[in-house]
């Protein structure tokens, strides 16, 4: 089978969009190693970035086995337009901890719900893999949610900075729910319902925001709105993708 076979498979495209989100998020979050505001969180955030990369690998390995491909090739060798990550993952945080924190929290909450649904899929060992990843994802959501509340309620400055970060990211967040092109003409077809998943996500993040004294308005974009899930990536994706694949392109067979 070929990469194109995988890309044309509806279930694979759902798996791929989560894997790509995690790969990109883990990659960019690794930049914070050594730079996070306090030592304890520096270690924790780095550890969770490793988790994200590892979770992406677990999903790529599933796809590799299903479609007889190399997981590294899936991760690094696709055309940029074949990546299914949403644009939120690569929005630059410009080393603003508030932006990094909000972005990871919004995405982790979404990923957890996506894995909840994939864990129910009876297709090879995909369900088992996602059930395992879901538990780890829940730890991320709890950790990041705890920080959202503390930074939202910590001081006037921390509240303002978190609110500014949310204002920056809120519009892009809805596009996490953009369906990939294939086989998802209706909301219900989008892995147990796009609208239902959005409502569940909005309820969860709304509860934490309320406790944190923060406000954000999220809307489910129209089906026609196109973004990263359908390969129409922002410029910041191209920059991150180019950097992430630099070694792979220079030395395709390199290994450590």
């Amino acid at each position: 089978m070929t990469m194109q076979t995988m890309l044309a498979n509806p279930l694979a495209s759902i798996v791929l969009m989560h894997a790509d989100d995690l790969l990109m998020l883990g990659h960019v979050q690794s930049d914070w190693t050594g730079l996070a505001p306090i030592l304890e969180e520096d270690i924790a955030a780095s550890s969770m970035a490793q988790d994200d990369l590892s979770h992406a690998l677990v999903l790529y390995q599933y796809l590799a086995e299903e479609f007889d491909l190399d997981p590294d090739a899936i991760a690094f060798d696709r055309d940029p337009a074949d990546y299914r990550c949403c644009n939120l993952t690569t929005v630059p945080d410009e080393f603003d901890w508030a932006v990094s924190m909000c972005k990871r929290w919004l995405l982790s909450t979404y990923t957890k719900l996506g894995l909840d649904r994939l864990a129910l899929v009876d297709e090879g060992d995909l369900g088992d893999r996602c059930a395992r990843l879901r538990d780890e994802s829940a730890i991320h959501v709890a950790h990041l949610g705890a920080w959202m509340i503390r930074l939202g309620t910590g001081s006037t400055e921390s509240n303002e900075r978190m609110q500014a970060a949310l204002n920056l990211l809120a519009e892009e967040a809805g596009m996490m729910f953009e369906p990939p092109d294939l086989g998802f003409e209706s909301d219900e077809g989008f892995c147990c319902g796009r609208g239902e998943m959005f409502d569940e996500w909005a309820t969860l993040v709304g509860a934490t925001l309320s406790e944190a004294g923060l406000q954000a308005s999220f809307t489910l974009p129209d089906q026609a709105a196109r973004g990263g899930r359908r390969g129409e990536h922002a410029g910041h994706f191209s920059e991150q993708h180019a950097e992430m694949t630099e070694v792979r392109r220079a030395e395709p067979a390199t290994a450590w």
Partner: protein
Amino acid sequence: MSKIREIPLSFDADLPPATPDGRHWVVYTAKRDGAPFKWAGYVDAPDQELALQFAREHYGLDEACVGIICHEHAAATDGPYGLEPLQPGNAEGEDGQDWTVFTLLKRGGNHQTAGTVKAPDADTAIDRATTRFADGKIRSIRVVPNSQVFQTTESELLIWRTHDMTYKLAKGYSKDVRAKWSQFRDEQTYEQYRKEDIARHF
């Protein structure tokens, strides 16, 4: 190193005043269900929830770990520590609050949970714990009010991650690096042999 790191960090004004240090917490981990919680290290955190979150990332991933407890450093009271092992006392009683008892099994070792006693205050708790747990072998006793010992909940029990983290362990690192050095050395040896062989024959 990422190119993003090449961006110089700049500040428009003086840095804001430093925030106070977090509270200091002592962390203990259990390697398997039913095993005692053994001292693992410390974390700084503003409250117990984040202390456990940090402890999970710092100490829960370094070795087998099925549970974590922590308490604020200031909540602990340590009993006498001597050159000789503690001998059992005769203080007894069932009044007061519950205290978690940690024992030090050998000099230079680490504390681990031993059980609980009831006592109205820390000194009495140490006396009663000495009666109950000192067996002529342990070196010291620490007590912490049960209400100030915090533990990962059932929903948070998952600590080991899906991915292979042996590279974080000294033994894993040693094994991996040794293998790479062996390979490198073998290649060097072969290259040297090849050069000498060519020189000998041609």
